[in-house]
């Protein structure tokens, strides 16, 4: 009897209420660890701006400990997967577009409509670019920058070689390549990657599409065993034979050589401007970078590049919360949704902005216009949404390489590719 009364109003009860009250007040103020993982902040062009953002974030969140983790771009995906598998905390992560679907399939990401709010996102981001990060109705990613992999030309080289009009069809393109070679046989006419399986796969995809060939349909049916695919591959093989594509360079090598005016055309995403600036001495070098549509088979066809983007996502593990006002959400907002930042990044490195405000401010620039136009007609790589996409891409890249460098016959390569893709797709089911 006496005990019951004490439990409601006695000193212990008071203490309990007090503690509960303190907890309520203290909870939001409890320190959080918040983790950002990405590669751009390690790179020379973007480092100063991003580091300022991180410093600013830490200053406005003194009780939260911000940990910024950086890996070289080439090792980034690998480490993201490793950390995912080991349940390590990654509040905000920077992703290349093709790494997104596997993580989505693993249910590893928060729906940013819930975390940031669909209305907020729609108000801030360009709607077409925002759509890129939507998969199965969920906003799993927001675009940090976006564009497409399309054709890039060196104005200096083209002028010197006497190419007045950018080539629109494949026929014109081949003629232009021959003209470059005739002008100077030491300049590489077409800097198509011939080293590195994944690069070969990406770039050959664009060429295959130009010929109307496809690899796989959405249901997993292999479509590559077609005359169009054979035409595409034969085209590439012939270019190598004729010396219009050089052997042994990957896209990173080619970018350097391009920046030194020894390449006429190559495939590249929007980072090319930042790269050329860093290599060839600042914004003065911008003038020589020409963004061109991918050459098409027939005049009037739609040029199709590969969709390209850097996304920001939030992983849902290791203690990271999807709270609306959580440190993670605030970090994402600070890094990816600040118009002023995107403006600075555009000015300094040529990074294509994705926020409405920034695009309104700088969107008239021809560089941005060219890439946004390319992005409109660009498509996702066909292997992207398959669980074993990496394996499929490896198969495609290997067979193309075998035909281009190893003397495998076009017919043989296509047939083997189709067979191997089929086996891999069946095994994954």
């Amino acid at each position: 009897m006496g005990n019951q009364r004490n439990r409601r109003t006695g000193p212990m009860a008071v203490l309990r209420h007090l503690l509960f009250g303190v907890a309520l007040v203290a909870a939001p103020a409890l320190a959080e660890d918040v983790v950002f993982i990405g590669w751009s902040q390690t790179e020379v062009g973007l480092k100063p701006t991003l580091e300022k953002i991180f410093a600013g974030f830490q200053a406005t969140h003194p009780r939260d400990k911000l940990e910024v983790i950086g890996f070289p771009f080439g090792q980034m995906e690998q480490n993201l997967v490793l950390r995912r598998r080991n349940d390590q905390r990654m509040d905000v992560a920077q992703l290349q577009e093709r790494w997104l679907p596997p993580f989505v399939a693993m249910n590893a990401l928060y729906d940013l409509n819930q975390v940031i709010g669909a209305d907020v996102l729609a108000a801030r981001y360009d709607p077409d670019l925002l759509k890129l990060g939507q998969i199965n109705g969920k906003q799993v990613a927001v675009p940090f920058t976006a564009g497409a992999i399309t054709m890039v030309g060196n104005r200096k080289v083209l002028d010197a070689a006497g190419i007045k009009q950018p080539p629109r069809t494949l026929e014109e393109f081949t003629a232009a390549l021959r003209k470059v070679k005739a002008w100077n046989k030491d300049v590489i006419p077409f800097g198509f990657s011939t080293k590195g399986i994944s690069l070969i796969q990406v770039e050959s995809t664009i060429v295959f599409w130009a010929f109307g060939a496809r690899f796989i349909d959405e249901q997993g049916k292999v479509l590559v065993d077609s005359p169009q695919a054979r035409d595409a591959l034969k085209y590439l093989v012939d270019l190598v034979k004729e010396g219009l594509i050089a052997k042994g360079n990957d896209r990173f090598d080619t970018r350097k050589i391009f920046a030194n005016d020894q390449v006429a055309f190559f495939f590249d995403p929007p980072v090319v401007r930042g790269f050329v600036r860093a290599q060839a001495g600042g914004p003065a070098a911008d003038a020589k970078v020409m963004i061109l549509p991918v050459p098409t088979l027939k005049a009037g066809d739609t040029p199709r590049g590969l969709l390209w983007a850097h996304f920001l996502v939030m992983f849902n593990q290791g203690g990271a919360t999807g709270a609306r006002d959580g440190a993670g959400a605030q970090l994402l907002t600070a890094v990816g949704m600040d118009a002023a930042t995107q403006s600075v990044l555009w000015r300094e490195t040529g990074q294509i902005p994705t926020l409405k405000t920034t695009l309104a401010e700088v969107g008239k620039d021809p560089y941005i216009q060219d890439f946004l136009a390319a992005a409109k007609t660009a498509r996702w790589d066909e292997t992207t949404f398959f669980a074993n996409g990496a394996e499929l891409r490896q198969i495609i890249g290997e067979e193309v390489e075998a035909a281009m460098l190893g003397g495998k016959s076009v017919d043989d390569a296509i047939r083997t590719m189709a067979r191997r893709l089929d086996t891999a797709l069946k095994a994954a089911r």
Partner: protein
Amino acid sequence: MAALAIGQPRGAAYLGAQQRFGFLLTVPALVAYGVLILYPFLNSARLAFYRSTLMAPEPVFRGLENFEQLFGDPDFLLSWLRTLVFVGATTALTVALGLGWAIVLNQGFRGARVLRSLSLLPWVMPSAVTALLWAWLLHGQYGILNAALLTLGVLDQPIAWLATGAWAMAAVVLAKTWLSTALVMTFFLASLQTLSSEQVEAARLDGAADRHVIRYIVLPHVRNTLLVVLVLQAMGNLQQIDVIYAMTGGGPVRATSVLSIEVYKTAFQNWNLGRASAIGVLWFLTIAIPAGIYLRTLFRE
């Protein structure tokens, strides 16, 4: 060794204590080995019988499925051959050059000391830069090898060495050899320094020429070092990934895809851990048998 000295009144208990002490000495290493090497090794070996991929990381038992897939892949079997070529060529070349360079430096001519120190540079340089350097030397458009050969008239067109099958293998062999020669040279140099000059002088008095000295005195003397170095280099070349991956990525058309590269790609690009572990198990079995035989002979000596 266990033979008791005659007349020494020591008992079996003492012998037992000795044996215990001997065993105790090995314990710290065994613990480190057990935790850091054996457990991961057994865990990986176990994974070889499971399917574990990116999408399905929870391992599902599949018996010999991974092994069947591997043996059914003709290119995988070629990897063995490539590995043999790479390891054989690199080890032989490294040991030969290391020994040769050690003999040269041992002469003690002026500047030998400086040369000796400078030879360490290839070995100390980070592998990312070694790969870049060699890729650059052999570059199809801007490499100095092509420039030299064109100038000398040996070639009339530059060759993209790293994009041409057999040459790519030669290139990675040269690069890895370049890296390791210094270490091997150091081992041999140390061994040569313990060669007593009296032995050589005695042979000279008997009328031995240089080549006799090398054949009958130097080579036998370094024999033990030679064996150790061969084994270590072979094992190291088997594990080599960094330089090859950075120079050729395993290409062109898999020409330089040795087993270590295959394992790395399968594990960290395709995330097919079951398959990667299966490759590891096969690799282990292939090496363990000759290794076991070799160790048996070591023990017998």
